[in-house]
């Protein structure tokens, strides 16, 4: 900023003409959610270029992974996307299980899917809330968080913590589903079903919100594929792709569900995908509750190592798995594995390389938000300045997840 001339002393020739081209520094602490800086180059109201200055909340997860043992990493990998912790956890465990060669009992598989779908609903509600507050719709923001609270409460009952669940462990899950939790989930589903029409009236079909989202940030099918969009953003552009269908993990191959795909590719389509996914997730949860098989929730290999007295005290009465001493520090065989899960924001890839020591040689995580950075920069080009936040919100970009 240049110093302003004194208006009372200057003559007409000294007046500063404000150029129509200019830069705006959005962030790094942004009232919406952004822990990132967006460097926006404007020409009038049109964005010429939006640069994402990522790394503001970088936590060095990949490097830290090289100095921690495998169990220590469970809470760590959750941290980048704390609102989607089950998926972050699940992807890592899937990769680890591939190296270890563990087979997971059916009931644990179903429970993994259950927790993941609950988490998906919570995460989508969070994302919708953030989008709403970006558009100035504070009710959508509060409703998103309020409804998410119900699902967080369910997760808390199931896993024992609100968001830092650390629920999935190598070979199974930590807690079993009890009738009380079943009842809670059924009630939560009924509640959410009642809420969706209300959401539609005040947010989704609100002409104001429609005006802000329709034909904003349009991404064609080809562009979405070329730019590497993932998850709901990809499906909003008419690409039928979901890891849950293409490479089923957990119990998804035994569950019947649809993948919502929208043709338009604009921000409104992406929001629609998220809302339909909430509905689909609720269908999946209902199926799981109905069909979940009986059995152990931990692989026999580890289950046998638990002392019988402790098993009786914890597992048989409270449905709680206690760890055998093995978990404190174990050495998986040499090898490498890659795992893919469909996290709430899209495809999440883990690459894990074990050299036979208790610590991984290398952990690589490709998070969905990381892949959104490029999409965002491309979509912002040529948009209006006010659309910056609509695009940002509709992509459901989560800075810590991208920074890792």
């Amino acid at each position: 900023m240049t110093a302003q001339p004194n208006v009372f002393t200057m003559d007409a020739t000294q007046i500063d003409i404000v150029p129509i081209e200019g830069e705006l520094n959005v962030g790094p602490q942004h009232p919406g959610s952004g822990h990132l800086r967006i460097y926006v180059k404007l020409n009038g109201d049109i964005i010429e270029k939006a640069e994402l200055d990522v790394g503001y909340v970088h936590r060095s997860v990949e490097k830290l992974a090289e100095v921690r043992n495998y169990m220590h990493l469970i809470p760590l990998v959750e941290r980048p996307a704390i609102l989607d912790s089950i998926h972050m956890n699940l992807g890592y465990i899937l990769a680890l299980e591939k190296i270890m060669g563990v087979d997971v009992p059916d009931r644990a598989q179903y429970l993994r899917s259950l927790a993941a779908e609950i988490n998906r609903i919570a995460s989508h509600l969070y994302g919708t809330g953030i989008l709403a507050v970006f558009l100035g719709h504070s009710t959508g923001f509060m409703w998103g968080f309020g409804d998410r609270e119900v699902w967080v409460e369910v997760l808390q009952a199931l896993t024992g913590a609100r968001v830092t669940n650390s629920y999935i462990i190598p070979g199974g899950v930590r807690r079993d589903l009890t009738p009380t939790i079943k009842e809670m989930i059924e009630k939560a589903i009924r509640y959410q079903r009642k809420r969706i029409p209300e959401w539609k009236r005040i947010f989704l079909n609100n002409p104001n919100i429609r005006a802000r989202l329709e034909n904003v940030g349009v991404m064609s099918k080809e562009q979405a594929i070329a730019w590497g969009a993932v998850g709901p953003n990809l499906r909003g552009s008419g690409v039928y792709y979901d890891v849950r269908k293409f490479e089923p993990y957990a119990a998804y191959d035994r569950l019947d569900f649809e993948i919502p795909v929208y043709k338009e590719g604009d921000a409104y389509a992406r929001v629609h995908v998220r809302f339909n996914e909430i509905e689909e997730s609720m269908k999946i949860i209902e199926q799981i509750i109905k069909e979940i098989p009986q059995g152990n929730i931990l692989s026999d290999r580890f289950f046998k190592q638990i002392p019988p007295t402790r098993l009786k005290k914890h597992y048989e009465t409270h449905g709680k798995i206690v760890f055998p001493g093995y978990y404190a520090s174990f050495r998986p065989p040499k090898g490498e594995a890659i795992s893919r899960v469909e996290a709430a924001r899209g495809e999440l890839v883990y690459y894990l390389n074990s050299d036979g020591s208790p610590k991984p040689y290398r952990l690589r995580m490709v998070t969905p938000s990381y892949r959104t950075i490029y999409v965002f920069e491309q979509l912002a080009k040529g948009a209006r300045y006010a659309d910056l936040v609509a695009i940002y919100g509709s992509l459901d970009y989560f800075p810590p997840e991208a920074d890792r």
Partner: protein
Amino acid sequence: MDQVKIREYDKNKNPFRLFGAHVAAVGEGIKHAIKPKTITLRYPDVSMTLPTNYRGMIRLYKDVCIGCSLCAMICPADAMKMTTWEGKKLPQINYGRCVFCGFCVDVCPVDALRETRVHDAAFQSRRELVFNPDKFNQDFDQTLPVKGTVRKVRAVIDENKGIRYVPDE
């Protein structure tokens, strides 16, 4: 692979429908203003009892502990450390580092650690966050500095309101 169904949203932009949608949105707002679905917990006048299996603050049973140090080994955040205390090897915890994952509780072979349902705590300094085995051996209890009694409630999922708080005895 099942049938791929590509959906489209409704693009009707008839001015009358637009007006109708405006009326519906305002009506929804008025409906909620008249019949609110408040889920805010009026903390600290009201405080929440956490569910039985909640992973809150941890306590130690000093006499049960065998000093195997598995808890210190599995702790992902280096919060749990083994110390020699009155001639015995016992764990101490630093709540400044603890992430409440509960691994230590689950891995303890003799159940010398237990999760409590307490999660609300305030400390004056970082030093206080380190619990030596003696302090660790007690149930953590901190009364809230609130005038009058704090009502204890329990969150229950409700079909109409989302979350309802019922008094907890």
